[in-house]
Structures are given as C-alpha cells and as structure tokens.
C-alpha cells in the first residue's frame, strides 16, 4: 500500500468525490492552484475548473453560501483556513446550518449536505487566534456532525463519508497531522461515523483522546508501559455521533478512565463524555469509576512556545492524570 501524508489523503478524497458527483463544489480562500496555505486542494482547480473556486476573504459568505447552495441542490465542501474563524460565521453555522432541517421543513424534506473543512490546533506558535480547537461549541449544537481524523487513512475514509452524508458536517484537520505519513489504499473506501477506533489495547486505564491528543496518549502509553501500566487508547473519530458503546466496553474492562482534549478544559468535551459515562454507569446500577480529564488551561493560547507548552496538554500531563485515577 502506498504511504502518503494527510494532505495527499485529503486531496485524494476530494478528487474522488468531485469525480463521483457533479454537485460537489469546493470554495474557500485560496483553494485554487496549489491550494492555499495548507495545500489540501492542490491541483483540483486545474482539473475541475469552476467547481473549485477562490472566494473573497469572507467567512460569513463562504459558509452562509454553503447553506443556501445546499438547500438549492449543490453538495458544498467549503474550506475555512482556521477553525478559529468559525467565530466569524457562528450565525451561519449555529443558527442556520444546524437548524434548517428542523425549523424549516419536515414536509419539505430539507437536506443540507455540507462539509466545512478547517485546520485546528496549537503547538505551532500561532498565538491566540490561530491555535484553537473549538469543537465543544459545536458538539453543544444539535444538528451538526463533528469529525476529527488522526491518520491519513482515516482522513480519506472519513472525508468521503462526510461528503456523502446528507447532514452538515464540520471536519477538523490538525496542523501537526498534515505532514504525517501513513498507508492509504488507492482504491475507494469509506469509514463509517460513530465507530471509535481502539488505537492501543490495554487493561489498566481507558484513555479517550480527541484529535492530536491521540498521538500524545500513545506517547504516554509507551512511557507508562515501562512502569508496567497498561493504557487502552480510544479515538472516537466522530464526536457527533459519538460511539459510547466502545468507550463503555473498554471501561468495563479497565475500570478507570481519562478523557483528553486540546481545547480549554472548562465546559469542554471531556466534561461531557465523563458525565455520560457516569450517567450510564449509575443508570445501570454500577459503581462509578475513577475518572479524570486533561485539557488546555483556562487561558487564551499564548504565543511564546514555552508558555504555549505550559498551557496545552502534553504526554506528561496525561501520565499525571492516569496516575491520579490509578490510586
């Protein structure tokens, strides 16, 4: 199987879907030619012409137009350069994209097949407005699906599933993953939503990690193995829909859980997942298990690299949390 990086895997998925369905259209800032800052759409405008189009610098128009266009029969796959920019078009995402089917037409059978792709994440000294991982806002919003691949293989299979989905999907790509290589089949395949991936099997503590946190959790697992502690690392891959069954199955085995997310800890996704775990256990008459969360500190993300490191999660911080639940 050929080894390619995540950029190339995403590019393959986009190309296959443009070929498969003439209603698939891409637009965003600098997507023509080499494909903007992150080179994901490289070469596609040469092959597909108008269907891969540069837009003005206008996030509201990029994302809002996707809503109108999807309602009228296109299958837009639009790009936001940074997930931080979702805040510019919150009305379009939260008040429109997420709600249109519910509020505008059970009888109209309104569908909004939209994918909004965007770069997320820190660790790159890009400061407070280009380093966030703002998934929690959108997990909080009924009507959206959230996808966050961590390998080139997943990136291709999940993006193709996202594009074929008839619901609006927010698709997050971590900056650190763009250059990471992995085996990716050249033929078509799809990875279904709501299927968590057990990245490492283990018996002592379940670690649910989101996005780039999977890499850090695997690093922590490697370290802790030396001390005889065995981590089971689970990547949910989609936060909505969320595969709680795999998580609960793992906890059944380990009896302890840590959830890791790159976003600010307060009101974050780990709080939500841990509460769901607690509720499922107590509703089933079981004893709650020791649990902990790891996330960014409750600060804006600082620029200076050592400060940024102090704020964001790390393998060491995961190890610390694991030790807390082991007691």
């Amino acid at each position: 199987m050929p080894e390619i990086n995540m950029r190339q895997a995403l590019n393959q998925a986009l190309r296959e879907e443009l070929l498969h369905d003439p209603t698939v259209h891409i637009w965003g800032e600098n997507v023509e030619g080499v494909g903007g800052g992150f080179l994901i759409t490289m070469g596609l405008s040469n092959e597909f012409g108008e269907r891969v189009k540069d837009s003005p610098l206008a996030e509201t128009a990029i994302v809002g137009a996707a809503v109108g266009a999807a309602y009228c029969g296109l299958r837009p796959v639009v790009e936001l350069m940074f997930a931080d920019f979702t805040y510019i078009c919150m009305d379009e995402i939260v008040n429109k994209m997420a709600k249109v089917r519910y509020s505008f037409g059970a009888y109209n059978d309104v569908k909004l097949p939209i994918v909004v792709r965007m770069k997320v994440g820190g660790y790159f000294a890009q400061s407070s407005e280009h380093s966030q991982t703002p998934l929690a806002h959108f997990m909080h919003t009924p009507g959206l699906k959230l996808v966050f691949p961590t390998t080139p293989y997943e990136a291709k299979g999940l993006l193709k599933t996202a594009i074929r989905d008839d619901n609006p999907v927010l698709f997050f790509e971590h900056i650190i993953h763009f250059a990471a290589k992995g085996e990716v089949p050249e033929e078509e395949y799809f990875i279904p939503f709501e299927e968590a991936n057990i990245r490492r099997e283990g018996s002592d503590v379940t670690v649910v990690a989101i996005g780039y946190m999977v890499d850090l959790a695997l690093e922590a697992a490697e370290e802790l193995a030396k001390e005889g502690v065995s981590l089971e690392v689970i990547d949910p891959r989609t936060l909505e829909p969320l595969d709680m069954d795999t998580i609960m199955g793992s906890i059944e085995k380990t009896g302890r859980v840590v959830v890791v997310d790159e976003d600010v800890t307060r009101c974050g996704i780990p709080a939500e997942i841990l509460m769901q775990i607690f509720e499922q256990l107590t509703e089933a008459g079981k004893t709650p298990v020791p649990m902990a969360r790891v996330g960014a500190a409750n600060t804006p993300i600082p620029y200076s690299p050592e400060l940024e490191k102090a704020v964001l999660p790390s393998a060491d911080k995961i190890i610390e949390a694991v030790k807390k639940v082991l007691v």
Partner: protein
Amino acid sequence: MKLTHEDKILLYRNMLRGRKYDEALTKMFNKGQVPGMWHSGIGHEAVGAGVATFLRQDDWLEVTHRGITHGLAKGLDARMWLAEHLGRVGGYAKGKGGHHCADREHGILIGGGTIGSCFPIAAGAGLAAKRLGKDQIVVCLFGDGAAQRATLHSCMNLAGVWNLPIVWVCENNLYSITTHVKNAIAAENIADLAHSYNMPGEIVDGQDVLMVTEVVMDAVERARNGKGPSLIECKTYRFREHGEGEIPTPYRTREEVKEWKKRDPIKLFRYLLLDEGVVTEEDLNAIGTKLDKEVAETVDWAIESPMPALEEAFTDIYVE
C-alpha cells in the same frame, strides 16, 4: 415586461390576497390565538406582488419576516403557512419553525430569525442556480435594518465577483423597529450601495405595483441572461407597528403614518385599474369576496389542524 389585462388583475389579486391573510393573522394574534410573534406587512403589498407574481416556480425567493404577500404570490401554501404560525402539525415544519417558513417546491428559501442572514443564503442559492445551469434566478428581499449588517457587504461583493443571478430588493420602510434609516445608514439611498459592487442600482416607488414589477422583472431578465446582480430599493412603509401587540411610541408621528396611508398600494392600484377601464367595481369586489371565502376556509382548516405530538420535538434534527 409588457403586462396584459389579466396580468394586472393577477397583481391586484395577489396584493389583496396578501393583505387579507395578513389581516386574518393580525386579528388572530390580537385574539390570543397565535403563540409567538407576528410582523404584519400591511403597506408592503406592492413590493410583495410586484417581485413574486411573475417569477418561475423554480426561481428562488428569499422573503423577510414581513413577507406574506410575497410568499403567497410565489406559491407558498396558505394553509401550511397559517398552521405553522399557530404551531400546528399541519404547518411546514409541523409547528417547529413558527414564523420561519420555507417551501422548496415553490422556490421559497430559508428566511430566518437573524436579520441580515438572508444575504449569504441568497448568495448560495445564486451560486447553485448558476452552477446547475437551469436558468434559475434568485430574488432576495431585505429591509433597511438588514442593510445595516456586514453580511450585505460580503455577499453583494461575492455575487458581484462571481456574477451571480441575483436581484437584491430592499424594502425600505424607513424604520428598523424604531430607529430611522437616516440614523443608521450613512448612504443617502440604499440603492447607492450598488456602485460599490459594480451593479445597477435603482430606486422605485414601493407603493406602485406596476413600477415595482417593471423594474424587478427587468433585473430578473438581466440576471437570467447572465448579466449578473442588480439592486433595487423600494421606498415603502409599514402601516402597523413593528410587531403585533406593540404599543406605538413617539418614534414616528401620527401625521407621517396618515400621509403614508393615503398611499395604500392596493387602493392606488384599484383606482388605476378602474381609471384605465380594465375592470369594473363589481369585478374587483368579486375578487375580494372570493378571497374572503378562501381566507375564512383556510383559517378554519388551520385552527382544526391538531397540535403536534410531543414526540415531534425530537425528530427532524438529522437526516437518518
């Protein structure tokens, strides 16, 4: 566009039909039969009928919260619209959308609760219309209040750059709730904004249905022929308060309201039709009588439509 006698009578009927449904819902609201809010569009009927009567069914229309005449003239189902306002299961969204109404089959886009969100929706519809290549066009209505949002800039700019088939129609009724347009928009006229986006901009008397129709349909032809977007500003007035149930405050004078009511678009057109000898009083009265019957039947039907089952609250969030 050259209007025949029949076309003119249709315009009259569509204006009057909007007015009568508007009055019916206003009455129901004031009797406490409407759970939410209602923004009467009485006074705006010339714009409503003028923009919507001669569009194709597959053209797209984005209406405002005051857009009942417009929607009905485009093909909105009066029963489903009214039932939706009453929160009944027979409404467009089984009562879950309320004052939001959309109808894909009749080309009615998703208007919404956030003023100014119409611009990106219409831009996207324009893009789809252009790419799908079926000669469809988009008409996007918006108020002078909406014109104050930044979404206008980004989307009129996008439509200009991409040469999208969109007719932007402003219903300038002078007020955004109680704020006068002079205190909120720096330009002399909203139509002046057109220059910035490299499209024609025109001002029309929004109480004159023939003028609205003529100017809008010219812009529609332009858009359909690939010549891109246009901006039309209709100077109009809302005869009632911003929302039903609101008490008039001194933001506008009684004299001003009285002066504008002299220019009731339906009365003006009625005089014109009679003057032209196109129709007789009896013909026009007969149209009114027929509409009264239709509206009464619709109201009865909507009131009879059951409330949604509680389970409905939990459906239609995702496509399965």
